């Protein structure tokens, strides 16, 4: 696998700007051999089961006993030498709704992430199909980078029935879903081609964490963000970066996540040193930088990156009079059925898009309810989880159908995938709509 590393044209902008490609080899998780003891986290649990009542997986799959057992109870029962983790931890989709529900502040997703990491490290067969598949899904960026070098061929191949069937049979990746298409020009290619930032400013500077999806699959979102921030007079930096780690946490691939996080923290901490705040367009990426990094890692700069990372629209709301701008603007036929991604909910952003769309002349957004979309990143891609994923999503699909709008809206690329998959609607990102309204 390592032949693929840096195999491209040395003048390729990607190779200059991104850090060297991710390695992909069997790993020793927890190379520092520091084991995390999360038993004290159980001190906060008063057993109310609110977390179980919001868990979208436990609601449809009794193999998963719910976050309370999986988190504070399982941890509390551990003695030092008890290493076994119940295998049901792999059924958790890492939507993190338990985190935002717990009235008592139990670090549930941290417990799940850590337990999952230990399970994968110590109990999962490293040559199993499940391990390989999860490793591949978790390292989407690696494959995306390859794929986007020859986007048309990849798109053709991934849409190929034979390939899909091989994926399902050999890898356990469901053939029910269409692989996301790779853009002909990645965001970073576009960025390089346009000559980088158009505005320079010492006062207003942001560093953009675009994540994999905006780079390889939906560069329009990234471009919209750049236009919007430049409209408000910001200098946009696009530092080198790796995957945020979200799919790796969800699959217990903590060593992969650690490597990616280390690079991201050091690059973005450097940007912060230069006076920038960090913004992201994907709510799972911002979640990762804000919450999971400080919960799981301790690099220098982790805390400052967590405190200074914002979701892009949130940032504009706090620092600009975005409301007034939106009220002055006008768009046509912009009615949306909006789904708040779980990870946006966890950051306190669940109501934001609806509020913003309601301000924008000609636009409206209807919240399609609090249910989870069910895909949870890589979860819904697993053949054995596909049905569960669609059952979880059923409530959202119904509400989308009920809503008047015929276009969907969300901040999360994989939720968007699920929304499109379940309803056939086109799905927009709020940044795209705002950029169209304000910048054009």
């Amino acid at each position: 696998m390592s032949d693929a590393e840096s195999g491209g044209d040395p003048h390729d902008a990607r190779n200059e700007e991104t850090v060297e490609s991710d390695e992909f080899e069997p790993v020793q998780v927890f190379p520092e051999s520091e084991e995390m003891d999360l038993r004290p986290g159980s001190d906060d649990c008063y057993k109310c089961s609110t977390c179980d009542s919001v868990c979208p997986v436990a609601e449809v799959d009794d193999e998963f006993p719910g976050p309370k057992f999986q988190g504070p109870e399982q941890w509390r029962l551990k003695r030092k030498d008890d290493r076994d983790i119940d295998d049901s931890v792999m059924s958790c989709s890492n939507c993190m709704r338990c985190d935002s529900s717990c009235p008592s502040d139990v670090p549930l997703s941290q417990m799940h992430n850590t337990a999952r990491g230990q399970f994968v490290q110590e109990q999962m067969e490293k040559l199993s199909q499940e391990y390989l598949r999860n490793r591949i899904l978790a390292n989407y960026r690696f494959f995306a980078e390859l794929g986007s070098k020859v986007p048309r061929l990849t798109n053709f191949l991934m849409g190929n029935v034979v390939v899909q069937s091989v994926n399902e049979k050999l890898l356990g990746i469901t053939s029910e879903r269409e692989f996301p298409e790779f853009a002909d020009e990645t965001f970073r290619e576009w960025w390089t081609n346009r000559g980088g930032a158009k505005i320079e400013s010492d006062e207003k500077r942001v560093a953009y964490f675009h994540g994999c999806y905006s780079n390889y699959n939906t560069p329009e979102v990234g471009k919209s963000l750049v236009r919007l921030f430049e409209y408000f007079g910001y200098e946009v930096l696009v530092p080198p970066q790796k995957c945020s780690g979200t799919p790796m946490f969800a699959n217990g691939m903590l060593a992969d996540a650690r490597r990616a996080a280390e690079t991201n923290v050091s690059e973005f901490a450097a940007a912060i040193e230069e006076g920038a705040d960090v913004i992201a367009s994907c709510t799972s990426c911002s979640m990762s930088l804000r919450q999971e990094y400080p919960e799981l890692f301790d690099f220098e700069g982790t805390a400052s990156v967590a405190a200074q990372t914002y979701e892009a629209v949130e940032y504009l709301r706090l620092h600009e009079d975005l409301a007034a701008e939106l009220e002055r603007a006008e768009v046509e036929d912009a009615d949306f059925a909006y789904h708040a991604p779980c990870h946006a909910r966890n950051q306190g952003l669940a109501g934001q898009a609806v509020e913003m769309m309601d301000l924008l002349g000609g636009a409206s957004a209807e919240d399609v309810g609090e249910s989870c979309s069910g895909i949870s990143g890589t979860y819904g891609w697993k053949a054995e989880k596909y049905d569960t994923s669609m059952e979880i999503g059923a409530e959202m699909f119904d509400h989308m159908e009920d809503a008047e709008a015929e276009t969907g809206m969300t901040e999360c690329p994989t939720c968007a995938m699920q929304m499109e998959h379940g309803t056939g609607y086109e799905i927009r990102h709020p940044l795209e709509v705002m950029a169209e309204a304000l910048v054009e």
Partner: protein
Amino acid sequence: MAIEDDVLVVGGGLAGMTAALAAAREGADVRLLSHKDSTLRSASGLVDVLGYDSAGTLLADPFDAIADLPESHPYRQASVGESGVREGLALFDEVVGESYRGGHTDRNALVSTHGGTVKPTARYPASAAAGVASDDREVLLVGFETVTDFDAPLAADHLRAAGVPFEVEGVTVPFPGDFRADAARTRLADALDANERLEVGGNRPAVSTTLPARKALAEAVTDHLGSAERVGFPALLGQHETEAIRADLETELGAAVFEVPMGSPSLPGMRLEGKFRKACREAGVRFTTGNPVVDFEEDEESGSGVIGAVRVDRNGAAIPFHADQFVLATGGLVGKGVDSDRNGVEEPIFDCHVPHPSDRYDWFADEAFGDHPFARFGVKADDDLRPLDRGEEVEFDNLRAAGAVLGGCDFAAEKSGSGVSLATGLAAGRSAAREVTK
């Protein structure tokens, strides 16, 4: 540039949502900030107003007794009073519509609990209506082997010991389908919501077949029905389709079907939360959830005694939310609106004074169900529900408190939790809104 509203409500439980709704209906721009899910999901979904007076006497009419409550009781504040309690209930009735009963009379209903007792309450879910204890029709209680919080035969014997005016039997059956013993309560509810096809006939493949969940459940019960005219199940008859599930079961069984309210996680509590949230949304309340309010800023112009903004902590960043008026509805000790350590008790956001004995060994009674001082912990407020400091002066001109963060009553002993939340939520929300709209 900052986020600014007329009224900002901190806390997303019944009191907070009632306050937000009341304020929005007065024409104010309202935002509700909540950190986590509220205790509604742990509560039974019954709406108690006042079940016992201070002497522990069972009350058939809660309103009669309000005037006799101690002056420190939230019901006794001038902006609340009996009329405030009634208005709170009227707002409640409007929000929940046909999904609740009890509004036709002032009298309390005695509703069966999952512990086998009955308790006085003012409003009960329609799904529990057929189970009230002053109805003399014969009852069959049905429990499930794996739903360990409700033992139906024991509850039936207990009700008999309480002298209920009806015949009652209990039976334990397996929940149909091949669910694991620790399946979440929401999983069973979801199977009934979706009317999934479930395996019946147990582990004998020859007789195993599948049936829609509701029919399968009815079949599991029908042999035990006898002459019962009412059948009670633990409250897990769906999260969304409760009425349809009940109707289907009633048709299959030829008897009235009701739910016995349960503790956490409580499906009726979740349904109630959904109804209030929807009503708030429809009234234009904006919800910002997921991060804690940790602190506040004083108003720059008015200075001390007036709150300008609250600060929400988001992974180390402090994000201000500005408003003219604030409502504190963060709950009591359970909801974490009141916190304590070995040395004292506090209200953590605004540091409002929480009266309490200085010796923590005076916070409790020695009997488990004794007269616990801790049960009355909370802020003390003036007639307009504004928290008072140690010297009985108003802490902040533009802060009101609602719900369990208010001290002065033991809602568990007197059965008044939801009533206090509704009445004070309404009073605080309305009063706050009138300050900005006047």
